[in-house]
């Protein structure tokens, strides 16, 4: 079981986290302006690289905060878990 460093809580065991897939896939500004293929690409298609991958994680059993992380999909090593640039505002 890996240790994953939550940017808010520090290193915690993997089972405390949930995976959120590829990061930086923004919800389209105007979905109705997209044709069916472009919309389907947003809903169903994600990158699957061999190597560093920027992805979303959430500390489900901890602070319940989302963060982005760069992980090498070949080794599962986390290369960094910065706080999300767009933090939750109050």
């Amino acid at each position, binding site marked *: 079981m890996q240790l994953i460093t939550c940017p808010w809580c520090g290193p915690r065991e993997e089972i405390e986290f949930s995976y*959120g897939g590829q990061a930086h896939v923004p919800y389209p500004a105007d979905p*109705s302006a997209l044709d*069916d293929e472009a919309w389907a690409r947003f*809903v*169903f298609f994600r990158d699957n690289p061999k190597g560093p991958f920027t992805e979303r994680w959430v500390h*489900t059993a901890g602070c319940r905060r989302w963060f982005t992380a760069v992980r090498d999909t070949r080794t599962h090593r986390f290369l960094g878990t910065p706080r999300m640039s767009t933090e939750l505002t109050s």
Partner: protein
Amino acid sequence: MSRVDGYGRIDRTRTVTITVDGVAYTGHPGDTVASVLLAHDARPATTSVKLGRPRGITGSWTEEPTGLIQVEEPFPEPMLQATTVEAVDGLVVRGVNGQGRLSQVADHARYDRRHRHTDVVVVGAGPAGLVAARDAARRGEDVVLLDDRPAPGGSLTGTEVIDGRPALAWVDDVVAALAASPTVTHLQRTTAFGHHDDGFVLALERCTDGRTRQRVHRVRAARVVIAAGAIERPYVIEDGDRPGVVLASAARDLLHRHGVLAGREVVVATTNDSAYAAAVDLRDAGAAVRVVDARDEAPAAWARRCAERSIGITTGATVRGTRGEEHVTAAVVGDEEVPCDLLLLSGGWTPTAHLFSHVGGRLAYDAGIGAYRPAERLDGVEVVGAANGTLALADVLREAGGPDAPTAPAEEAAPPRVLWRAEGDPARQFVDAARDATVADVARAVAAGMTHPEHVKRYTTIGTAHDQGKTSGVLAVGIIAELTGRPLAELGPTTFRPPYTPVAFAALAGRERGDLFDPVRTTPLHGWHVAAGAEFEAVGQWQRARYYPRAGEDMTAAVLRECAAVRGGVGIMDASTLGCIDVRGPDAGELLDRLYTNMMSSLKVGRVRYGVVCGNDGMVRDDGTVLRLADDRFLVTTTTGNAAAVLDAMEEWLQTEWTDLRVRLTSVTDHWSIMAVAGPRSRDVVGAVFGDLDVSNDAFGFMTWRDTVLDGTPVRVARISFSGELAYEVHVSAWHAPAVWDRLVAAGERYGITPYGTETMHVLRAEKGYPIIGQDTDGTVTPHDLGMSWAVSTKKPDFVGKRSFARPANRDPARKQLVSLLPDDAATLLPEGSQIVELRADGRLPAPPVPMLGHVTSSYRSAELGRPFALALVKGGRDRVGETVHVPVAGELVPARIGPTVLVDPEGARRDG
């Protein structure tokens, strides 16, 4: 008796008695079942799993492939090795033929778990591990030292010299120093069985006192030092599985640990220097010994020691087979049969690199030792000593300890010969005695085209027994190499996976079993339901009252009665498990508009609206009601099983996409208790209990809520119906739920108020065509498929899932749609999950594969309709209302008519009472 005076680390002042296969044997503290048996020239009554060949003791620890026993007392445990079970008074075991038997009675022992965080974990308390632990402790590091044997020292027998003193005295000194260090935890009888990412080591401690039988240590270490030693392997000979054929190191171990001389006439067959130590030690203990060295020349120092002791050496020769029936009587060397009662085999040493391999460490073939050893550096992992392929004690100490390491006299050493098998009949050469698998079996696998060790392993089962091929694994690879002509460097060992040794599920479960297996959530009214005789069902972690049977009632009768009571009078149900989320903030309405398919921001304070939540794919994820409590505050309810998922989804949108929205989410599921009072007389009951509330339809209309107070307790009442009847939801703080529930029940008494459970609730809602998300839907169903286009806003520019509704696949009129099904015979209860088929015009089934139109999602008996009915997802279902389809039930095709989803009160006349 084969016990030798002056040898062994057993406590001869005390005696223990164990029973093996019905015979009582005496031994001493420090003995194993194997050493007790060998001390009495006995063996467990075991034969091999497939061929029924006699089996004896082969090893001295966890490498043991043959001496399998079943413990009967103190508590049944299947398939243990006689070499690893310590002899304690009262132990009762019997030999097993490769198959154990689980206990038939509950295990009342405690299994425990302990978490440890440390700078360094050292696996193995042999010379390498002790040096590593000592050095780390001297640096002030937190150290966890784990060793699977009862006593530290590893392979040291006591004949070695470290720092000029007997090795075991050195061990005692180091152990004492570690014990005095406040930063060291030293655990014996603790097997590190798994090594995972980021310094995570799982270890099983076999406890010897107290209530806890075993304990799993979950160790997280910044640095892992693997000093697990090496395991001797034999070379493969004809009938090498016969009792009396033993590993050379095991015989030496038996002598020095347990004072047992395993034979009087000993032949030592070796490919390397290490077995000479066994030859010399056994000779000194009184045995007659002859060495057969596969190498052309005997190592000079050992040859001299042998000569001093009249130990004959035959070089350039191998033992190629054995003679005997139940026990070995001779070793076959060339054409000669050498009489013996013990044949020791040494084919070299295999580093115990399992824990290195567990974390993906690469092993490479080292022709110098004829084995695979660690071949790369991993961050935070060190492999030292024999586990790293460093076999000579002096080298081990230097490798583990650096410049100020303890020293041992250098031994002149001759290189081993790498030998996998002697000449002989492949069908009688057992590679894995635990699996009765021979060289012929390997050859058969190779002939069948399997040349990779992983494939051969699966074909022959070599290495898949309780011992996981600790002695046989590399032999199999060597023999594959011979048969295929491919070098071992290319083949590689089979993958080592945790656990290193078998671990009981009970140990892994720890205390999380029985009532503690999974958390159980009960509502504040649970005690009332129990007292009322409710039958419960698990909904997620919740225990919900399913129905309340009266004397003589089965579930069908009870549910029909409860349904009739609600539709004809009044019923009350505990709905406290509904997920409740408090959504608060200036943008709360905006958030809900984006998440729900319909408009929520337009909801007026005091009103309630039903809503549907979809995913981006347009498929229904959840549904529920939304109460607007204030301009900036909503109470959202979710289905019982989905509460956490809905909250998580809301959080995800808020945190990752709509970070500009000023909204806070709070789970209040456990805060509120919700009681549903439903039926035409519900107004009378609610009106009687909450005197301050005007319950008239004009003052308190459908889908509105009102606050009131009962004896100083704030109560919220909402006109929400999940049955189509006039109904109220009473929300009250969980603390006050039992009191309020009692008041409602008391007030309802004169109307025959009937508590009803989830089963009745399901029937009542299905009669009205209300879907249950997750039962009538499966993640491929849109609101439109459910006939809920009315709940999908056409005004809002966007909401989650909207764009997907416009995809051609989602507008296909042939999509599966929710409909009702009424079996023509008005008697058959269509099983949920049944497929729905259509007959051809000629009244017969189409040829297979028969096209499936859909399936039954809900099916019940209806008191109101006086017949069974079902809900189903059917292709193009709404356009087929009135048509007949067929449902296979118990081999018969049952005709059923497709109907609209709402079967009871389609006009909705009952909701206002």
